């Protein structure tokens, strides 16, 4: 599949994962997802921390019994030699308070570096997952650095070094990391962000408040995806506000609760659609 065309914090936010992990219908998807984490900005100086990076995301429902072997096979396929490296599955229970979701699994370590998240979804948007989806999230920069033997993300070749216009990761992203770090941390207009947050919240609710039956076509059309777009927006706006440092500890919980309420409503709506396993 293709990346989702909105700002998200992780590949999990793509509706192909969040919404499709709900309901009983089998599903399998894989895609690259550009991800934004405003608080992780380091002005492009940290060797492997970025406010904008790429994830490769896999979701399989129901989780196959050999998911670990499949996963290790994928590492072999990109050139990681299992006989030379130390691959470890280290407990990391995944929880997304904003999505009302949790699962059990691991972060996968390659020589001490976290290269993937491996999760068996147990609950999404407040709904128990039946069957359970297996989710694999690969950190693409980290894996590429590994395979290419590069120590700093910015030094990584972005295209073929033999290409007449050879570019490094720095050529492509160093400046944007600086620009966004400054904007995220110090400049973004918090009042505007706040207003947008509230708009998205209201829009989500009003989309879902519509009748299930479309008056124009007479069809049953529940708009789970458009509503979920607003949830994604609210979530990213919250992350920006957080990076600006204007959210206190107590407020934080309240904001997370508000986003979660949207995610839950969207999940409730999705399971009432055909893709969500609803049978009329």
């Amino acid at each position, binding site marked *: 599949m293709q990346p989702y065309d909105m700002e998200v914090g992780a590949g999990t936010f793509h509706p192909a994962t969040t919404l499709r992990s709900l309901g009983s219908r089998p599903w399998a998807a894989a895609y690259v997802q550009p991800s934004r984490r405003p608080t992780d900005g380091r002005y492009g100086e940290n060797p492997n921390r970025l406010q904008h990076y790429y994830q490769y995301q896999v979701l399989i429902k*129901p*989780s196959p019994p050999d998911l670990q072997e499949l996963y290790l096979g994928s590492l072999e396929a990109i050139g990681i030699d299992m006989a*030379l490296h130390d691959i470890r599955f280290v407990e990391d229970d995944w929880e997304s308070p904003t999505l009302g979701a949790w699962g059990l699994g691991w972060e996968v370590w390659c020589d*001490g570096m976290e290269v993937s998240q491996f999760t068996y979804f*147990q609950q999404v948007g407040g709904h128990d997952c039946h069957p359970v989806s297996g989710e694999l999230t690969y950190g693409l920069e980290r894996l590429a650095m590994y395979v290419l033997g590069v120590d700093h993300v910015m030094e990584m070749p972005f295209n073929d070094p033999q290409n007449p216009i050879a570019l490094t990761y720095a050529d492509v992203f160093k400046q944007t990391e600086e620009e966004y770090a400054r904007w995220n941390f110090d400049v973004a207009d918090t009042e505007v962000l706040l207003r947008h947050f509230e708009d998205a919240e209201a829009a989500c609710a009003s989309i879902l408040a519509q009748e299930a039956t479309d008056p124009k076509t007479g069809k049953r059309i529940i708009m789970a995806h458009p509503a979920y777009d607003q949830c994604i927006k609210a979530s990213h706006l919250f992350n920006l506000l957080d990076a600006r440092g204007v959210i206190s500890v*107590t407020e934080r919980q309240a904001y997370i609760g508000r986003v979660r309420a949207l995610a839950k409503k969207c999940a409730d709506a999705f399971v009432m659609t055909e893709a969500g396993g609803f049978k009329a």
Partner: protein
Amino acid sequence: MPDLLIELFSEEIPARMQARAAEDLKTKITNGLVEAGLTYSGAAGFSTPRRLTLTVHDLPEESPLVREERKGPRVDAPEKAIEGFLRGTGLNRDQLSIRDEKKSQVYFATLETPSRPAAQIVSAVVENVVRNFPWPKSMRWGSGPLRWVRPLHSIVCLLSDESGAKIVDLDIDGLQAGDSTCGHRFMDPKRFSVSSFEDYTAKLKRSFVILDASERAEAIWQDASNQAFALGLELVEDRGLLAEVAGLVEWPVVLLGRIEDQFLDLPPEVLQASMKEHQKFFSLRNPKTGRIEYFATVANIETADQGATILSGNQKVLAARLADAKFFWENDLRIAKSKGLTPWTDSLENVTFHNKLGSLKQRVDRIAGLAMNIAPFVGAEADLAAQAAQVAKADLASEMVYEFPELQGLMGRYYASAVGLPDAVAQAAQAHYSPLGPSDSVPSEPVSVAVALADKLDMLTGFWSIGEKPTGSKDPFALRRSALGVIRLMLENGITLPLKKAFALSESKIDVSDLLGFFHDRLKVFLRDQGLRHDIIDACISLEGNDDLLLVVKRAKALSEFLASEDGKNLVQGFKRANNILTQAEEKDGVEYSYGADVKFAQSDEERGLFAALEAQSQVITSALKQEDFAKAMQGMAALRAPVDTFFEAVQVNTDNEVVRRNRLNLLSLIRSTCRAVADLTKIEG
């Protein structure tokens, strides 16, 4: 007699759950076997990241036949009663026997639990245990209903003896027990069959799996120590980390790496926290420089390049982590040095401490006010104490503490020093959290003591004022720990600051006697752990001045010694006798005998002797108490023992002569009041 071998093979079990799970497997299975009538001679549980294993020795071939006789109703009992008995036993009337008992005929049922083969019992017990295993967190996977800590893949369940091994017939949601398992995930993943526990452990080892976690931990520790020694370094001990790491590997391989020079100037605690928290690395100290200069990481695999690739990968990750820590450290220092700690203390305004108790900034202000008032009692300069309290929690707003919350206080000390605040202030930033528990050390530097006391008293009076008191096992704000902290601070520093006065220094409106009672309960627990009897503490707490903890404890210790002596034990008996007679008389007469004893109504030498002793000793006691010399006061009581004893041997208190009787009762009350000045002996047991 057969041995039982069980292996539950799954995807990676969280390290922190493994030891407990191995233990649970052992108890649950063996309990189940015993309940079903199978005895055994020994059992042991083991865990690795991917398996839980249990071996049980010497099970019988089958459970014994059990016969139980149950007595029923009389033969002529109502039909309903007989039917009920039949239902309860599951028998029909022909199967009952009838016996004569006490001139009537009574039904008896003989119930038999038939003998069952061990394999059948094992199968049922294992299935039940797997389905109801007490994992702290468990999950489902795929489409099945089974729950386990992570997907469960195979089960070995074997009964083996000299004649061979037999697979126990067991099927849990399609997962069938067998006799095969596999080795190390990468070094030797092939499946192999096993025939007994010995065969199993030997084959595992050949396949690069050490079954026993303690053996793995020992191997890690030995290997890391030896390698450190070879480089002239010391391995920093960390038992918790060792146990965790032993739970992350089946085949431990220790690799030592050097920390890049550019990070060696980070505070050692930051290095350690960063390496431990994120990478599970051990720290290695260079004894010559006192710095942490190397790390030890534990891999799960032997490689053709002797771990070179793995080590360099780990070094890179560490460099990135430390670059982050350095970024926080330098950013924090830049802010602190250019603007002081004020931006941080101000930003605590935005952090809610508790919705009824305001922001963290408000709490800090309260602590500062308290610390200033407490200062004179602990020998600290008031202004310095207030200043220290104001900055003590500044580091909570720093980036480093945001990233590593466990470094709170410590970073505060570094930052306070960096901005040139006095040593005592910087020290207090770290020390004011102490003592954190019964074994944590207690600060002694006066400014630290003042802030530490203020910090805890604000917690207690604050939460008391909004009615958030600990109940039963619930103590979400760790108020018991705070009270214990106050107690230890006062006792170990010899601080005289009566609690009522201390409470009054805070602005919170509280039920003083309730909070004082809470302190007394904590004090009892604390002193009991030091071997002081609770009744002795009670005897001291029920007196005036009981809010002065130092006084209470001094008194209690003296009393404890006194009661251990012969004089002490006898005096208490004499006192109780006096008190009993007095109480009975007071109840009977409806008056209180409290004064007016006059030696001129004394009729015997013993009586006069007691008068004289009381007069002399009460003076001794009064002056001793004034000087808080409790040992001397106890000596005064000890001197009363002989006269009191002789008095009771020779004198009958209740005589017909009312005047004499009343005089003697008043004399007894003099014993009571004299002793009572020292301790409330009515509380002493036995």
